[in-house]
């Protein structure tokens, strides 16, 4: 209609990119701007008769069965947030901190990993740790930067350790098994956890003032308290086994396992006598908000990618990239660079939906394993959670941290952890077996 097709796909690619950036920077909601660009190109390139395509993209996106797992995991995490499960787990875990230098830091990372294995969303975990662990470490006189970094990096583990909603979205858009992705992410996730723990221990070993142990009077527990502590650790562990066990045991699909997770949390809330209508209600409201935000970004991105592919965009990018006369690993590195750059501006869901339908076929054409690429992508997203200027983890933490902690403090604290994530990224890039070994 507007004769945009006369532009040719190359210039149109730049126009799409430019329009999206411009709309993003004037503050249009991400979910709406991608949809608007999709509509603009549908009309402008194909004319009004092609409009049915947008509807079909929207409909098939929201009625994709795997997608159901996302609201379920969000619901589960919101319920967990509102019960005292995480708080009790954190307190009980002081058993492992003991009189160790940096012990509370280690305790924080371990609890973060356990919380990550329970649900797999990011914001809630960072907020929880920001409320539980950060005041505790600051009170004991931990180095401010070390304490903040541990909380932010630990809180973003949720994307890496299964079940992870980032991997669910990746699996959906690139048509690979979500269960296999979960398996592949286990070892890289644990590598990250061990690196964080080692980092805390080494820093505190070199300079004990960075993470003094808790006073003996606080650590002492009566036999009764110890018994209660074991209970507080067992309950979350049961939920982890329940959710991951039903996936790996072949009992339930990932989506069903997410529903089982909700049931698991509800049952544990009943056991703890915490289940009330108001808790369920506010968890539901939070689910509605979080999913509305995530899913609409997905809807818009799915529409714009659909149109772009129809315009011949996928072929254009594929020919351009595969035509480069460089070793395949350089292409992978180029993609990593693009992802890291996008991570500074876009939300992870936008990145998955916009880039993966284009990148993954190229990865396959180069002879790489899409499961491996999913894990690599996931570590990449970890970095983007932390990296300024739009690292979401930093904003989440800022919302609950003591007022004396500024965004600048947070950004100053995260860089050692970003370096560790980059090292992990390098490891998995160099040795794909780290990700693929467990599945074979």
């Amino acid at each position, binding site marked *: 209609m507007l004769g945009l097709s006369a532009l040719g796909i190359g210039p149109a690619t730049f126009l799409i990119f430019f329009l999206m950036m411009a*709309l*993003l*920077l*004037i*503050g*249009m*909601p*991400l*979910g*709406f*701007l991608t*949809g*608007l660009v999709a*509509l603009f190109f*549908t*009309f402008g390139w194909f004319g009004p008769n092609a*409009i*049915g395509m*947008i*509807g*079909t993209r*929207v*409909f098939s996106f*929201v*009625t*994709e*069965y795997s*997608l*159901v797992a996302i*609201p*379920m995991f969000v*619901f589960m995490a919101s319920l967990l947030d509102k019960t005292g499960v995480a708080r009790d787990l954190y307190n009980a875990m002081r058993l492992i901190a003991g009189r160790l230098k940096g012990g509370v830091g280690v305790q924080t990372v371990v609890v973060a990993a356990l919380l990550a294995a329970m649900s797999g969303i990011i914001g809630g975990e960072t907020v929880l740790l920001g409320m539980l662990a950060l005041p505790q470490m600051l009170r004991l006189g931990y180095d401010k930067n070390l304490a903040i970094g541990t909380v932010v990096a630990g809180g973003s583990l949720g994307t890496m350790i299964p079940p992870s909603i980032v991997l669910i979205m990746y699996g959906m858009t690139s048509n690979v098994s979500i269960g296999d992705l979960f398996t592949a992410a286990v070892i890289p996730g644990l590598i990250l956890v061990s690196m964080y723990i080692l980092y805390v221990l080494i820093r505190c070993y070199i300079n004990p003032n960075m993470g003094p142990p808790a006073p003996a009077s606080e650590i002492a527990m009566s036999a009764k308290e110890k018994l209660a502590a074991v209970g507080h650790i067992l309950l979350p562990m049961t939920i982890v086994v329940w959710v991951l066990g*039903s996936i790996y045991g072949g*009992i*339930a699909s990932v*989506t*069903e396992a997410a*529903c*089982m997770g*909700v*049931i698991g949390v509800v049952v544990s809330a009943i056991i703890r006598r915490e289940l009330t209508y108001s808790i*369920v*209600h506010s968890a*539901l*409201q939070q*689910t*509605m*908000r979080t*999913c*509305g*935000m995530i*899913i*609409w*970004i997905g*809807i818009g991105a799915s529409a714009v990618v659909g149109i772009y592919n129809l315009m011949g965009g996928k072929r254009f990018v594929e020919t351009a990239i595969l035509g480069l006369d460089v070793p395949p690993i350089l292409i992978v590195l180029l993609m990593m660079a693009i992802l890291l750059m996008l991570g500074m*501006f876009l*939300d992870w869901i936008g990145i998955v939906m916009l880039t993966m339908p284009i990148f993954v076929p190229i990865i396959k054409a180069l002879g790489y394993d899409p499961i491996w690429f999913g894990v690599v992508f996931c570590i990449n997203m970890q970095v983007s959670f932390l990296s300024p*200027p*739009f690292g979401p983890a930093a904003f989440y933490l800022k919302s609950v941290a003591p007022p004396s902690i500024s965004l600048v403090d947070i950004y100053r604290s995260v860089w050692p952890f970003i370096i560790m994530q980059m090292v992990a990224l390098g490891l998995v890039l160099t040795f794909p077996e780290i990700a693929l070994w467990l599945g074979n």
Partner: protein
Amino acid sequence: MSDHEEEFLVNECDTALDRWIVKLGDIVTWLYVIAVLISFYEVIMRYFFNSPTVWVHETTTAIVGMAMAYGGIYCFSNDSHISVTLVRDLFPKKWQKRIAIFVDCLVLVFSVGGAYAMYYMTSRALITPAGTFYMQRSGSAMNSVWPTITKIFILLVFILLIAQACLHLLKKIRAYGEGEE
């Protein structure tokens, strides 16, 4: 910044329709609970009684899909969609307001286009090419009319979004005029 301006840029979206959408959303969100319960039922039936159902899979997908679609207008009513306002905040106040109004115009354009796309699709799910009424079915073992219901629901969501976008825009334009005095 005066209180008035603060309100303009931060929480400008509190119209009667928004409050109504949030209230209805608090009911729609129970669809998630239903989805959890029936999925649990399915797992139990399949694993312990070896008799999987034919209706859970499709029903879950449809009701969760509808709830998620509703989430879009739910978020729009309390302005919790992700947007990057860092650059906009660098402009003088007056220009910030103008940009905010421009963005709302674009949201309105998007909602009209989206509603048109959904209308186009829904009408094909309801009317045969010969012009008679029918309801598109899923064609699975359950062969439900869920696809049609979901399409109608998403169309309604987009229609509400148009109304919302209009009201937000009007409210901002009015507030902009008042700010001038």
